[in-house]
């Protein structure tokens, strides 16, 4: 290919890349045609990835902090170190955390999940522990007096009564993880953060509106689901004095 050699030294051929619709080119506030064209390829996968990121992070974070809170409830000594650890993790900016993790866990979802899990620990641990400790002393006294063992007191009295505090923690953790999970895009093109960061850099309004809007919507829906779940699990907390 003689042309190739020539071209390599001179000016390249610039092909026609195709044009965007007027709405897209003029970057109007919202272009339905762009959403239609990119829903299946960009938006929907990003949304599902985002849901996955958040669900996994909060689930693992919850299990870890729940276990830690149970231990700290039993052995007070554990509280301070775990609080300190989770507080330090909480204050590390995500980019710095990624710097630390990438050499080990790579440019992967694992890296992102470790960071996201780390950020949920503080709030979930504190709330679960506060919840366990919020049980009124007379209730514990009654439980003991009636012959509940320590384990029965924990599972049948302290934990059920800690549920509202745990849910308060979960709500904060879920909503903040939905926001935080956008930083996943700094490591891999994954989740709603990918289209959002992209759109912010290009100042492309439709994408910001759609991806940002979906993140907000997801937070609202998740919060509503949690509130509903809590209502269902703790009918006693919403029961008020009858007239």
């Amino acid at each position, binding site marked *: 290919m003689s042309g190739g050699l020539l071209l390599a030294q001179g000016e390249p051929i610039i092909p026609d890349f195709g044009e965007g619709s007027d709405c897209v080119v003029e970057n109007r506030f919202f272009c339905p045609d762009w959403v239609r064209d990119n829903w299946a390829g960009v938006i929907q996968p990003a949304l599902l990835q985002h849901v996955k990121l958040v669900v996994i992070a909060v689930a693992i974070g919850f299990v870890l902090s729940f276990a830690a809170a149970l231990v700290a409830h039993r052995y007070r000594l554990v509280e301070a170190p775990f609080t300190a650890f989770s507080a330090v993790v909480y204050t590390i900016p995500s980019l710095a955390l990624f710097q630390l993790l990438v050499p080990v866990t790579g440019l992967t979802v694992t890296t992102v999940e470790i960071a996201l899990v780390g950020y949920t620990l503080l709030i979930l641990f504190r709330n679960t522990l506060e919840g366990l400790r919020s049980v009124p002393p007379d209730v514990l006294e009654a*439980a003991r007096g*009636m012959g509940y063992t320590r384990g029965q007191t924990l599972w049948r009295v302290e934990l059920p009564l800690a549920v509202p505090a745990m849910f308060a923690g979960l709500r904060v953790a879920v909503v903040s993880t939905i926001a935080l999970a956008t930083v996943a895009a700094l490591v891999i093109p994954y989740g709603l953060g990918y289209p959002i960061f992209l759109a912010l850099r290009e100042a492309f309004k439709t994408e910001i509106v759609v991806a940002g809007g979906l993140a907000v919507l997801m937070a609202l829906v998740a919060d509503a689901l949690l509130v509903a779940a809590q209502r269902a699990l*703790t009918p006693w907390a919403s029961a008020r004095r009858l007239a």
Partner: protein
Amino acid sequence: MSGAAAEIVFDRVTKRYPGRAEAAVSDLSLTVPAGEICCLVGPSGAGKTTAMKLVNRLIDFEEGDITIGGESVRSLDLTELRRGIGYVIQQVGLFPHMTVAENISTVPRLRGWEKGRTRLRVDELLDLVDLPAEDYRARFPSQLSGGERQRVGLARALAADPPAMLMDEPFGALDPITRARLQHELLRIQGAVRKTIIFVTHDIDEAILLADRIAILREGGVLAQYDTPARILEHPADDFVERFIGSDRGIKLLSLRRLDELELAPLDGAIDLRASGDTTMRDALSQMITHGSRSLVVVDSEGQPRGVVTLDALAALAE
């Protein structure tokens, strides 16, 4: 350990809290006969609560022994011991996340009763404490008044039909009217179930009303006197007891006796004031004074006059 009432015996029990010079309970010996109510009274800090909690070992002790129905509390499994003793406290301590029915069935569930039996028992107990089961079964504690909570607390303590009950100032936080009503209800229930009850109070009037025997403790958990209310009022053991029961012990004594016990004078002339034979002498005296009358007609259950009691006769008894 369920069903029939059991005798509770304190045998030279001493309790010292770690790091405290004075004992909270000192060398306490007393016997509460089966089916009786023993009121522990005394000034604040005298060790009433401590003495009571030694029985179900919510507080542990080293010196002396306590037996229930002849068995040392120390020989029994801790949870079994507690499940066998009804426990009622002032703050009630109902489980906020459980309905009234679930609260009451706590111990039956711990003991593995079957559901049907438990459900029947709950309804029976709600009936006993005068809360219509239909209306109250499914409520949460937050939907009850203070008095209703205490009734549920009582029902919960009675649920597995324990031979003994411990009650720590159960009515202390209630208004006087509710308190009086619950006191009478407790007596009514006790008439039906006959438990051995250790009842802590620092209200001597409550003790006189409820107790078969009163144990008066002084600071350091020393037993000052243990006897029936009447004998304590008639023969206080020392100055401390005399001061503790108050200068009006004559009148208090009258509250232990009923008009039935008196020889009545024959009816003469028209007297407005009437009272039934089971009215306490103290109440009769109080009525006469309030109404400015020097005598009162005692009527029988049909309302027929049986005779007359005079102010002078009552005053003579109170001396």
